């Protein structure tokens, strides 16, 4: 029983680590892309602003992943916004 719990714990940690490191990056990247496309300023300036803010998004995502009550919530909190923003990016890129 103890080893089972130990294993579950480790899996949980591993899952959150992946969500934070990879999922967080994905969320940051997609929000950067969306901001770069959508901000109402000259192209280069939008890209600059979006990229400058990307690390803030990333670290907030990491905080979320480890603050979430369980691994499922952690993944949802990253996955859902990433998906939505991703759709937004595709829409804007298609329109451009």
């Amino acid at each position, binding site marked *: 029983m103890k080893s089972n719990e130990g294993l579950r714990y480790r899996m949980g940690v591993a899952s959150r680590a992946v969500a934070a490191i990879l999922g967080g990056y994905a969320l940051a990247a997609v929000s950067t892309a*969306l901001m770069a496309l959508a901000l109402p*300023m000259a192209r280069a300036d939008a890209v600059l602003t979006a990229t400058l803010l990307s*690390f803030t998004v990333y670290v907030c995502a990491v*905080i979320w992943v480890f603050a979430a*009550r369980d691994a499922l919530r952690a993944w949802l909190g990253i996955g859902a916004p990433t998906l939505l923003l991703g759709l937004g990016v595709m829409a804007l890129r298609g329109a451009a």
Partner: protein
Amino acid sequence: MKEGFRQSMAWLHTWSGLLVCWVLLLVFTAGTSAYYRDEISLWMKPELHEAAASPVPNTVAIENAIRMLEKDAAGVSRWFINAPSDRNPAVSVGWSLPPAPGEKGRGKFVRHELNPATGVPLAEPRETRGGEFLYRLHYDLHYMPAKWARWIVGFCAMFMLAAIVSGVITHKRIFKDFFTFRPKKGQRSWLDAHNALAVLALPYHLMITYTGLVTLMFMYMPAGVDAVYKGDQKAFQADVFPAAENKKPAGKPAPLAPLGPMILQAQKHWGGGEVDRITVNNAGDANATVNISRQQGQKLSYLRQAVQFDGVTGAMTSTTGDTPSGAAESRGVLMGLHLASFADPLLRFLFFLCGMAGCAMVATGALLWAVKKRQEAAKVLAKGGKVGFGLRLVEGLNLGAIGGLPIAYAAYFWGNRLLPVGMEKRIDAEISWFFIAWGVATVIGLVRPTRGMWQIMLGIGGAMFMALPLLNVFTTHSHLGITLLQGKGPWPVVGFDLFALVFGFFLLYAVRHLQKKKSALKPVAKARPQAKPTVPTVDSDELVTREAT
């Protein structure tokens, strides 16, 4: 993880900090030393010390440089001239040699340091990367492709950012414990020190980490550029860094107009300011152009204004960088904050102080974890059990990094003085001393992480640093006896020697502190022979015993 928010942040803080702390210690120590990289480079080139003591106005130095270039680099398509500044007393010139027959691209880049008063190349300073090595070390590491190193450092920087944010969230008593430091209380003292160093310089730590990421942000986060420019890097570069166009040589010879009036015109356009870098394209040709950029001076943003001139008539043709956009200025400021080139000597020293606090913060964090785990393992150890692998590893790495890095830096400086001046591959040799010293220290640390070994390593590091000024007496003509006592300078060299003395003394003081603790604890242990089961003598336990009683 059914814990509260603060607890989960405590967990995150511990792991995001611990997993990368040894790399961060390297990055922080090297980066902090980089605030004074030009001074370190000067110290490491004793051949330049005399020139550093004879300054002239920049316009004179540049004219001397042009005369040297006209003689020794005639016909080369582009000259670079770096005016003397607070950080480098010589005027440096550089140019690319034409590529060897059959080779493509640029040939070897030649650089010379000239005496600013005469334009005469200074005695070949010994081959050394100087402070530049330490500066590059903090983001390019070494012995690996720069791209790998930057990804590793960036990864660690994100971990650090997570550690800072989670640390602030989890520090419940951040205001109550603002000024708290309780020494001689084992684990609590380490925690107090870690907290104080972190909180009191918190704006700095947050700034330096975030701006570090910003410096390489297009590499770390290309998503924005890709989405908008669809991979057209050139177009993006052109939008952000408007460079003046480069003309091809016309093939018709024409004398280069004097630079003095051009410099004055540029300064008039800027309303003051000093010249930073001059680039001469196609000198001696009808299509010669001159680009004069402005020193950053005290401006926060690292973006430079520049003025372009026709090289033959001396007329101003265009300007760049006069009105950057808000976003560009923001990035400029963030990068400027990281590089700190704008800082005057006082502010630079404050940055350096905060950097040292950062190094100490990382070190105390790592030590705190090890001490805490030791204490938790006390019961197991008392029954004759062994320390877990994780703790053993951390203790070993701690010794290798915290005890070993001072030795590594000292070895680099010792190598600079002792390696023969004309030897082949001198730069690589000097750098290898750094890594060999560090490698040996790390291996020893992993094998025997005892209190005695801490004393030995800190002692060696301290002795090596304190001996540097003495080593100068035997190996240079610019030791403290001349530079300080006779008042001849150069003052950066004096500063380096004095810092070496103070830092070495601090390390030796730490050794003495460890010795005193050891002898102070022995009577306590004897006084209560029956109260506790005898704890096997593993040196770092003594802190634990004290805390427990």
